């Protein structure tokens, strides 16, 4: 796991979200893990391939997902994590990963990303790699988002 391949994903998170009206995200923890991650409620997985292959997961509680959806929709109340809120989270994940792909292209690494898949449930396991992966915990205005990144260079 090469940290320089992970930074573009974290940079995307910290630069894109403030442009969408979020407070500046803070990195609260970084750890190397193996095995599976545990879904916090809402987990979006986006795969990528070409010069790098891997997956990124944006993992959060449903409350955080509703906060993000609401902020993206100009503060519109989001009482339920409904279709529109799901669409907003999915769109955010797509934007963040596309932005990370642009950052990687700037390093000379071409990456194509898939469409996001959003899983909702309690306590499910998410496996994104046979080996180690990196978990970065971010805080946005008191709401935690865990980013799990597995990446390997072709």
């Amino acid at each position, binding site marked *: 796991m090469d940290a320089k391949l992970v930074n573009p994903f974290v940079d995307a998170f910290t630069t894109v979200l403030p442009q969408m009206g979020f407070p500046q995200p803070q990195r609260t923890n970084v750890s190397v893990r193996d095995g*599976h991650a545990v*879904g916090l409620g809402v*987990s979006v*997985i*986006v*795969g*990528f*391939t*070409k010069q790098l*292959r*891997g*997956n990124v*997961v944006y993992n959060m509680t449903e409350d955080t997902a509703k906060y993000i959806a609401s902020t993206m929709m100009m503060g519109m109340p989001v009482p339920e994590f409904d*279709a529109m809120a*799901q*669409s907003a989270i*999915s*769109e955010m994940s797509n934007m963040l990963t596309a932005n990370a792909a642009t950052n990687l292209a700037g390093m000379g690494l071409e990456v*194509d*990303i*898939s*469409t*996001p*898949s*959003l*899983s*909702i*449930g*309690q*306590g*499910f*396991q*998410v*496996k*994104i*790699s046979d080996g180690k992966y990196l978990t970065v915990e971010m805080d946005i205005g008191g709401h935690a988002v865990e980013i799990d990144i*597995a990446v390997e260079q072709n």
Partner: protein
Amino acid sequence: MEKVKVMIVDDSKISRTMLKGSLAKTNFEVVAMAKNAAEAVKFYQEFSPAVVTMDMNLPDADGIECSQRIHDIDPEAKIVMISAMKDASLVARGRDAGISAFLQKPVNTNDLIDTLMILCQNRAGKVAVLRESYAKPFQRALQQGLFSLVGVHSEISLELEDRRFLDVSGIAVIIGLTGYPVGRAIVFMSNETMKKFCMIMLDKDSLDDVTDEEASDSVEEAANIIVGRGVSNINDVFKDKEIRITPPGTICGTDIRIASPKLTTFRITAKTRIGDINMNIGFAEGE
């Protein structure tokens, strides 16, 4: 879903055969082949094709005049000119005769299919194309893959998915598709089916010998092989637009909902003696 009907107008038997061959594995069905303008007009009325490919040189008229005659019958006719020569004056005269697109011989299969798809673009047409050209290859891959990996026969069905999410209790292997069209495939099944699948795949004597990790790893590997095979089936037809697959992401648990906003999705179900093995294949719309 109905196939999109195509009429080929060309005086050369070789050209007609080549064009028909290019469309053979797609959602387009050649319903008529005319070798001159008179036949073209007659067949157009008889078969009402959704789109016409038109050669420039015909024995009894040129392709522009022939297109004009078809347009006189049906002002909505969609005609693609396919000629050896393509210049500004031909394109200008062709547009006046109601020709919508121009391709040069020899025609690249992708260009032809793209052009026909764009001309026939409406929701029904797009879904039909996705189903026939992109979802069906996965259906084939699932059936063949299950047989070659675990030797089970399956009764297989393919339907447009009208629900916004999948309900999963057991395992779901998510594999992204990049290139054209972008999307994702999800292979999912119950815990019980997963364990039986693993038992056969790893040649174990009893279900008790199967660990949870082996079970999910087996299904993940099988999904990777099956989706890879589906993508190869597509890439065999559309040679320059390579679809690639991302590494699998695997979700295990109970009462999980997986949503994929904004995708057109198809549900493929393989009914087998070890239970239902499902695949949901989704493509981004409007790509």
